[in-house]
């Protein structure tokens, strides 16, 4: 008998633990990659909750499939972080994701989704014009915003339950002071593209069987003079550009010596944790100084203070184009080369 009573109590409690969610974009006006305000055909929003851990870093997250990112009911797991996609909407009108146009997420729907109390709420707004076949790609644009009750950011972030027992709705939307929000570049740098590692890339490019992946790493399958692993690690051959300083007046002296700055361009892959890149510098082709290139917070950098990564531009499909400048005083000659090591994990 005691057991039955306990079950009844739990069922009753769970049925009343939530409030309906009236969610939306509040006062925020969303513009897409093109700079135009999002409309019904160009905007796509999802309501997301954090079940465990933290909000997943969607700039580096590897989803099992692109559809998981935009489908209500999908569970996204990244390490110890578990996020739920709760709802989705296209109710954008002149850039506004109107709360009143989106059906409330009702109690029974929340229960079907398995929502627990106390899950932090966020909205992800996508520029659907950057989708392919109706789904996000690693070239898509998005922004993530925390939601607050009545948009009041001075209070705690909105959660799946306010503690109130009601079927009335909790009105949740981004900070009410946030009136304009341009979308940022979606960087699924380690995303769901098919080239997350060498095996995926080479199998996609050359229809090579699984067992042959290791064997073809150092082959030149397309006969362009570059090995497969080199093509994978460096999407394009490195280049150098000399920027001459013509304002120094050196051209008028008897001994012509025009200073220049060598700017190196290379395309690297940031979405494969097994790849470790370095820039190597030499004055005599015998002794090489190596400085590691690292990728953090969407920027590349070099461990050597004299070497500056002057730009990091995402090219899509996990590939970055970077420019590197060596600020050390040039000797009689300077030589550069990029190398990549495949770490064993």
């Amino acid at each position, binding site marked *: 008998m005691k057991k039955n009573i306990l079950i009844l109590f739990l069922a009753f409690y769970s049925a009343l633990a939530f409030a309906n969610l009236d969610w939306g974009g509040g006062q925020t006006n969303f513009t897409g990659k093109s700079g135009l305000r999002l409309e019904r055909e160009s905007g796509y929003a999802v309501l997301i909750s954090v079940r465990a851990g933290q909000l997943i870093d969607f700039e580096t997250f590897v989803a099992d499939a692109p559809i998981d990112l935009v489908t209500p009911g999908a569970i996204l797991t990244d390490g110890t972080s578990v996020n739920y996609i709760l709802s989705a909407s296209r109710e954008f*009108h002149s850039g506004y994701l109107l709360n009143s146009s989106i059906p*409330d997420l009702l109690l029974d729907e929340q229960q079907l989704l398995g929502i627990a109390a106390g899950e932090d709420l966020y909205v992800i707004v996508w520029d659907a014009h950057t989708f392919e076949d109706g789904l996000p790609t690693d070239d898509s644009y998005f922004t993530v915003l925390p939601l607050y009750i009545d948009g009041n950011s001075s209070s705690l972030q909105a959660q799946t339950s306010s503690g109130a027992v009601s079927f009335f709705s909790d009105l949740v939307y981004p900070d009410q002071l946030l009136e304009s929000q341009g979308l940022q570049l979606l960087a699924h740098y380690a995303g769901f593209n098919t080239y997350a590692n060498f095996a995926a890339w080479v199998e996609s490019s050359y229809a090579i069987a699984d067992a042959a992946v290791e064997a073809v790493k150092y082959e030149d399958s397309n006969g362009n003079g570059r090995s497969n692993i080199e093509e994978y690690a460096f999407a394009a051959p490195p280049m150098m550009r000399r920027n001459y300083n013509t304002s120094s007046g050196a051209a008028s002296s008897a001994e012509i010596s025009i200073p220049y700055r060598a700017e190196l361009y290379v395309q690297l892959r940031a979405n494969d944790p097994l790849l470790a890149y370095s820039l190597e510098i030499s004055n005599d082709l015998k002794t090489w100084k190596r400085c590691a290139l690292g990728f953090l917070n969407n920027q590349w950098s070099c461990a050597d203070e004299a070497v500056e990564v002057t730009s990091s531009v995402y090219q899509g499909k996990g590939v970055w184009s970077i420019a590197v400048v060596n600020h050390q005083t040039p000797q009689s000659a300077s030589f550069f080369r990029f190398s990549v090591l495949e770490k064993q994990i």
Partner: protein
Amino acid sequence: MTLSSTFCTQTSARVELGRVGSHQVRIADPSTRAQLVSVPFLKSAISRGRLDGVATSNFQDTQGAFAAIDTQGTYILRITEGSAAGAWFFLGSVSANGTSVQVLDDGFAGMLSDLQGNESFSVHALYTLHELFPEDGTFLPAADIDLNAMQVHFYDGREFKKFWLSNATITEHVGWTTAEGGELVYAGETVILPGTSFLVLDPRPSATVNIRIQGNILNAPLNVPIYPGYNFVSLNYNKRFDGRDLLILGEIGLKESGFKPSHTQSAGDRVFAYNSATGRFGQSFYLDATTGEFNAPSDFQPSAGFIVFNSGEAYLWRPLR
């Protein structure tokens, strides 16, 4: 039509004891989230008469009482006497000479099969959103988006259908607006059903707004359908209430109409008051199966909505003492 010259003035209501009355409804109040209000009257009848027959899906009146019905408004026919008094029906198209009118949605607030075919009736147009709530933006706040504007939320049995006052910044019209099929459409012609209550939200935190509603004080009940689940309802003014301002929960016909008794607060049918300060349910009541009375005294004014939770089959509530 005879208008009474006798008035009974109360704190928030002024009710004529004759056929037409008016009521001041507070739709915005400082430090509250939303008001749950209703329209406590029907519009004055556009025609009255006695039926000369009821067919499968239409009413007949040989004197052409339905000729006044146009295609612009939404009209109901109310049965005013007899055992079916309180039943009402949505009306559709009218015959050329006004002697016949189509009945829509039979069973909503009455059954054609319950009628004899000779009942007395009155025909009323229903109030619309823009008639009750001015939409030019001068009296009530119209805005670029919903959160900055006056809003009205109707509960449809599952969720709230939301309307807001647009100033035409992102819509092609000024006035009441709702989302329909992905578009923001004009919704000022939305009718308000008798006996229902709805939420009104003013975005201005310190605003106090009253509106005055005029209409017909009924001399017969007006049925309110109570569906399974939550029902946002209200009381109409009625002569049979003798002009009483407060209507006792146990004396408004719920017990007699199908409200189911229970032994505890947490099971069976319930009545919920609304707490405008929290925007949530207030006190709740149940019909004590042992005593046959509600577990605590309460009363509800016309224009103040409340919520009936129906744990069983649908029934028609006849709000009469």
